[in-house]
């Protein structure tokens, strides 16, 4: 959050002077403040507090809430006419003449709240958490009550200390650099397996994006899109619903590692069934009224537990298989799959709340593309069985080179992959390439996430049109809810 700032930011001289801007002539001279009239009052300096109860107000209006430069809740209400005989009305002469609008009517004649009530409001006032009439009453009171004025100044300064750490400014790739630097100096005795690094990093990146979100953003609508094998399809949820979705699908991996499954025992296996079960059981998560920080922590703690567990299990865990209902992946690939899902949905969330989101670190990107390339031959075969892809042109013996599509992803993290076209058992080779497609990582993301119709993917293509079409459709069909 960019609510962080140096102490100079809270110097009264820096406060937007709402009062002066609100010169609509409603006689709010008491609350207009003269924050820019006294450049000498720095933080902690209470010398600007008027010693005369009826002196001109020295307390600027409260600072706006974090990241909110227009956070004033609205125009100040007209002040009630002071009716308490113990507190004499302001002599007009004591007001700054420029601000004074003599003769303006003050229609409200309700008595102001007592000193004790006003004092109890000071914390809420400093946080801009009062109703407008209360704000006005407090500010009127501050002109008359020195002890409240001193406290008000102190509390308002304290609000300036309530900033979020500006983690959005933290370069997401710094994590990998810092950890690599540490491990270079002192190698880990229990390392994180290389195949789990992408998941670890992507989850941390998404977590950093979530950290600064308020409740409203957790409720922001998100449209999840994927390619169901035939056409683009979509589902509406919220940021909270997406995190729940990630959590319960990660839960399939957790269950395979003998960690607690967030859906409990006898949970369904397939990602979509798990997600539907969760959304059904936790309607709050999609409606967004649930406790968002608790959900974020559950998801994050499970992610940390996954990485911790495979670190200890080491090589032994990599070949365990994770059942996802209609398909199964070895743990190492399941982690890459979950890393990719995390990237995809972080992108969805970032888009929904209009934050920027960068590509993964190149090594992680490459590992995720590699998983996709390894899954493609089976995906092609499955589409072929379903009559959705062209039949094989020739029979190829297992392990022998066959017709190949050259998949090239450009830029750092990219590379060249050779996809066998006729059978998953065949070997793809550069020599047998009958087609070549080239795309950048962003286009790969859009295609493999099922965000664009496969035939419209931003892909450079050359060679066998049918092979290209089949591979593009098969790539998109790797996407799912």
């Amino acid at each position: 959050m960019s609510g962080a700032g140096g102490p100079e930011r809270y110097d009264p001289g820096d406060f937007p002077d709402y009062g002066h801007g609100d010169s609509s002539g409603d006689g709010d001279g008491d609350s207009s403040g003269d924050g820019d009239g006294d450049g000498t009052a720095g933080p902690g300096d209470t010398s600007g507090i008027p010693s005369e109860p009826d002196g001109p107000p020295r307390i600027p209006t409260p600072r706006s809430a974090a990241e909110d430069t227009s956070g004033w809740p609205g125009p100040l209400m007209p002040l009630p006419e002071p009716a308490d005989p113990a507190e004499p009305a302001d002599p007009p002469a004591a007001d700054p003449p420029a601000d004074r609008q003599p003769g303006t009517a003050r229609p409200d004649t309700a008595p102001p709240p007592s000193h004790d009530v006003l004092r109890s409001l000071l914390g809420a006032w400093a946080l801009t958490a009062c109703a407008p009439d209360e704000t006005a009453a407090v500010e009127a009171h501050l002109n008359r009550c020195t002890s409240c004025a001193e406290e008000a100044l102190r509390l308002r300064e304290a609000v300036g200390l309530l900033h979020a750490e500006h983690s959005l400014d933290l370069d997401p790739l710094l994590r990998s650099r810092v950890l690599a630097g540490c491990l270079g100096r002192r190698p880990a005795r229990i390392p994180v397996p290389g195949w789990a690094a992408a998941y670890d990093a992507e989850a941390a990146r998404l977590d950093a994006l979530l950290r600064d979100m308020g409740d409203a953003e957790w409720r922001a609508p998100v449209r999840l899109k994927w390619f169901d094998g035939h056409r683009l399809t979509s589902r509406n949820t919220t940021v909270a619903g997406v995190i729940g979705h990630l959590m319960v699908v990660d839960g399939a991996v957790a269950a395979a590692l003998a960690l607690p499954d967030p859906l409990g025992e006898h949970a369904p296996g397939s990602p979509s069934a798990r997600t539907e079960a969760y959304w059904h059981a936790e309607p709050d998560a999609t409606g967004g009224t649930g406790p968002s920080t608790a959900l974020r922590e559950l998801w994050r703690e499970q992610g940390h537990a996954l990485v911790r567990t495979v670190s200890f299990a080491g090589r032994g865990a990599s070949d365990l298989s994770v059942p996802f209902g209609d398909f199964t992946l070895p743990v190492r690939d399941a982690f890459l799959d979950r890393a990719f899902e995390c990237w995809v949905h972080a992108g969805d969330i970032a888009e929904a709340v209009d934050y920027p989101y960068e590509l993964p670190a190149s090594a992680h990107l490459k590992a995720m593309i590699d998983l996709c390339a390894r899954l493609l031959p089976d995906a092609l075969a499955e589409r072929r069985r379903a009559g959705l892809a062209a039949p094989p042109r020739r029979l190829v013996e297992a392990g022998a080179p066959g017709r190949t599509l050259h998949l090239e992803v450009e830029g750092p993290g990219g590379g060249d992959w050779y996809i066998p076209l006729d059978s998953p058992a065949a070997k793809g080779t550069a020599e047998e390439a009958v087609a070549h497609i080239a795309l950048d990582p962003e286009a790969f993301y859009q295609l493999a996430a099922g965000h664009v119709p496969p035939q419209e993917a931003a892909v450079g293509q050359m060679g066998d049109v049918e092979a290209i079409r089949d591979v593009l459709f098969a790539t998109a069909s790797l996407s799912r809810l």
Partner: protein
Amino acid sequence: MANDAPPRWDRRMQQRLARGEAAALGELYDRLASLVHHLAHRVLEDEDAADRITREVFTYVWENPDAYDPKQGSLRSWIATLTHRHAVHRLRSRTADDDSDGDGGGDEVAVEERIRGASVAARADYIVTSMPAPLRAALELAYFDRRDYRQAAAALGVTEDEARRRLRLGLQLLSTAYVPPPRTTAPPGYGRAL
């Protein structure tokens, strides 16, 4: 701000770091990197320099997990102190370098002022993370979620009077960050040697 952790987490983290568990280092980074980077940035006002301090601090912690003494306070406040010291050291040596170019004088006042501001921020972080949870929850609702005190009261399930009291008390506690604590009552973990 909600990054505080129970003492048990601190001790466990220390043990995991000590036995060389890379996953623990990642978890520590996830929990505290933004604090470290933020505090360093407050002192140095430079993105790259804050990145470097972040690297230095985590490297120090990873190489010396036993330097942390849980009896002296939270891991978070220890790391905040480390960060502050690294950053102030870097700032002073940078200023000294600039001065040797023939500049100097007025800069020093600005530097000390910036260090003071950063110390206040570090104390504020300590106060916020160690204040009673009900006070912190009220402040978070009012400040980060921009609720007014009536909405905060409803969300917390307390009376409006109580919500106002918590907001005022929370800010009163926080405002003590501006007063440098005497050496003897410094927050645990402060004043430790690197």
